[in-house]
């Protein structure tokens, strides 16, 4: 049995916010390089993993980026609908990070 911890127990900040008309940015900020590297190498926040968790077509997720210098990790995805249109019940995109909290990161 491999032990694991939830991302919410490891990261310092996990958040989401509108980043344009039809984009939401997901930012994960770590307390230090060690935890950042561990999560990055685990693949728990890989493009494919995040697309799977957020149930979005991988082809529609424009970018993911990592900044090793400062230990954040940022993933962006297209939103399901235009920001602030009537079908959008989160007009600032600020509660979209919920599913990321419970991502299991294997201890490595």
């Amino acid at each position, binding site marked *: 049995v491999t032990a694991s911890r939830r991302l919410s127990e490891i990261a310092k900040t996990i958040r989401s916010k509108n980043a344009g008309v039809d984009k939401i940015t997901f930012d994960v900020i770590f307390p230090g390089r060690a935890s950042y590297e561990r999560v990055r190498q685990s693949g728990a926040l890989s493009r494919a993993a995040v697309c799977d968790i957020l149930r979005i077509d991988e082809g529609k997720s424009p970018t993911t980026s990592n900044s090793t210098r400062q230990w*954040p990790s940022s993933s962006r995805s297209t939103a399901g609908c235009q920001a602030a*249109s*009537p079908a959008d019940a989160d007009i600032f995109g600020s509660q979209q990070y919920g599913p990321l909290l419970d991502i299991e990161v294997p201890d490595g």
Partner: protein
Amino acid sequence: LRDLCSARHPPRFPEGLAYFYGKVLECASFCAEPYGGKESVLGELTMDDVKVTALLPEQRYTIASVAGHAMYERANPFYEHFLGGHIDMSQCQNEQYDERTVRVTGPSYVPATELRVKLEGAGKIGERYIGIVGVRDPYTIANIDLATQWARQQVAERFGESGYELHFMVYGRNAILGDREPLRTTPAHELGIIVQGIAPEKAMAEEVCMIATRQMFYARLPQVKGTAGGVAFLLDEVMPASPAYRWTLNHTMRLDDPLELFPTFIVEAGV
């Protein structure tokens, strides 16, 4: 120093540092820890670096809070585009200068080959009313889509299939995440549904919303034990909300003169 400050040679701070300085200070304590929004901060810009200090005793700027701010609300954390070029933050170095101060070096300014401003626009869809519906019956909760389909059908019988919009936001199931909600198949023990009726005129929007909201009450679901009303109403009415809009324009526009869209005036007042 005298030479730098003379009128013939005014000091000229590096554009990358100056812009980065403005970007961080604009958000003040929002990029501090713990984050706030209205507490004062102090910035210092030199020829070599930017230093930002949180002033409230309980707040600090940290490497994580300042570096993290570069990602905030943007599709790419490394580049920020604006009229005249962009700032490249990919080589930024942050260091904890003292307990509450972060020192930043390395942002650079890259001039654009042409002047472009962002152009955004929204168009009105229509007037909007909203209704609030509560559900506690477990069978209705498990089959809430049947109830909203019923309500939608009643509106269609009155107004047809088009010429209006009707949205049901099911709080307690997936209103916020929609199809991305991993727990959408296990809704809460009670649901709150916001019904949005949108139409060109207020009277029609109100009626669309009223029919849809009220018909949730009468939705016929075969196995529901209760027969005296299928939902719980906080109010037996619907409420006017702000008109509904959607994005219609998301472009950039080329300019010859960077100030042509931004006229400035000097007015003397109170003298």
